[in-house]
């Protein structure tokens, strides 16, 4: 049995670890509250604007191509993926989950239908996103720094600009965004969603996710409405009037809405990250507490054993003197 001194030292060190994880948990809780507030504020806008954009992508304006950002490419050769990860670790499976999800959906993408030679390239935000390159060997196109504090739309503007330009220039045939959707404090789901071209039907086909979960952080009603619309997709195409002109309106509206989508993805990721960190730190604190309890028990046993041994020795000595 370990000596009492060793056990005491361990108890102390675990106690210190516990203090640290406790502090980190509290910091994460505070940050989480702020980021959840931020994410909930913008959700309605993001959802409504995405609905608008999807409606527009459906617009049946007598076969004319409304906007290059709505046009599907025949052959998908290069896919750009915007990945939102965290800057720091110690947040449970947060980063692993999103990175694995992306990797899986790329693999699935490959297996489906014809053997495609689609190449994936990453635009990452958050230091831990580098894992896609480190572990899976995907190419990185860009690495944007991510601020820790609650962010502004301006932060994602360069990304939006970059993907739109690259899509228009033909560098990418498809642009996806990978982020962690914030469901509630205990539940976050990594998602991969198609951003460009904006396509009503694209949905989950390539996303490698099944069921309701696959739909972006949207309300139930919207999903339902979308499903209903899906069914009568053909007959339910709108002929939109654009003012001043389709070109002018879409030129303005689409990039703006892409920005909003990216921003929403960033906020969702932030809220998820802090919740994940809070949860994992809470668990760590708990585990440390359990360990301290257990070690205290051992310590007491060891102490008692040594006292017993000492008494036995003394009485044995006394007996020998008689």
């Amino acid at each position: 049995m370990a000596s009492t001194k060793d056990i005491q030292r361990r108890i102390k060190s675990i106690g210190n670890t516990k203090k640290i994880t406790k502090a980190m948990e509290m910091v994460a809780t505070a940050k989480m509250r702020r980021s959840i507030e931020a994410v909930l504020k913008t959700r309605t806008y993001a959802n409504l604007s995405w609905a608008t954009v999807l409606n527009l992508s459906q617009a049946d304006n007598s076969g004319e191509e409304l906007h290059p950002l709505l046009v599907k490419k025949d052959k998908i050769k290069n896919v750009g993926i915007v990945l939102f990860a965290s800057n720091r670790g110690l947040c449970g499976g947060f980063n692993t989950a999103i990175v694995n999800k992306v990797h899986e959906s790329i693999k699935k993408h490959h297996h489906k239908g014809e053997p495609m030679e689609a190449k994936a390239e990453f635009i990452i935000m958050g230091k831990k996103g580098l894992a896609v390159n480190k572990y899976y060997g995907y190419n990185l196109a860009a690495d944007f720094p991510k601020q820790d504090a609650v962010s502004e739309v301006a932060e994602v503007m360069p990304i939006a600009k970059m993907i739109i330009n690259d899509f228009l220039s033909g560098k990418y045939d498809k642009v996806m965004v990978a982020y962690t959707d914030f469901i509630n404090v205990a539940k976050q789901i990594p998602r991969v969603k198609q951003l460009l071209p904006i396509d009503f039907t694209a949905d989950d086909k390539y996303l490698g996710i099944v069921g309701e979960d696959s739909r972006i952080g949207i309300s139930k009603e919207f999903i339902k409405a979308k499903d209903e619309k899906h069914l009568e997709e053909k007959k339910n195409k709108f002929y939109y009037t654009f003012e001043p002109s389709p070109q002018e309106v879409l030129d303005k509206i689409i990039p703006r809405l892409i920005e909003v989508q990216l921003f929403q993805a960033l906020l969702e990721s932030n809220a998820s990250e802090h919740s994940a960190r809070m949860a994992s730190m809470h668990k760590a604190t708990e585990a440390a507490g359990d360990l301290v309890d257990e070690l205290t028990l051992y310590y007491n046993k060891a102490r008692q054993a040594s006292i017993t041994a000492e008494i036995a020795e003394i009485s044995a000595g006394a007996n020998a003197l008689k």
Partner: protein
Amino acid sequence: MADKIIHFEIVTPKRVVLKEEVMQITVPTMMGEITVLPNHIPLVASLQPGVIEIKKKDGLPEVMSVSGGFIEVLKDKVVILADTAERAEEIDEKRAEEARMRAEEAKKNLKQFDQEKFTNINASIVKELARSKAVKRWKKSKNIQ
């Protein structure tokens, strides 16, 4: 009357400003002011800073200021994605006026011609102007009744 109602929603990135069933909506688009009634054809237009006026189900008007954004009109649904928007009763007229003054001052003081700053200042001037207009119109509509 059931078919004479529009589901109206106006949201900004920060919040939902108003969600209501209304009879008609007047918005300032780039091409000029338009009024949307039920069964309007689908329309998408960009907005310019100005005043939005709606008529609620009970016939009462509601006035809002908007600083730009988009409107999507579907058969019985209107969604406004505004950059910023406020209901008239939330706006403090005096402060709106002061903010506009400050912006105009800043415009005068701008020594070097900086395209970006200039447009930013101009944008805030029209925005504040729209806000104070909205309050004025709202007060007017209240007085008449």
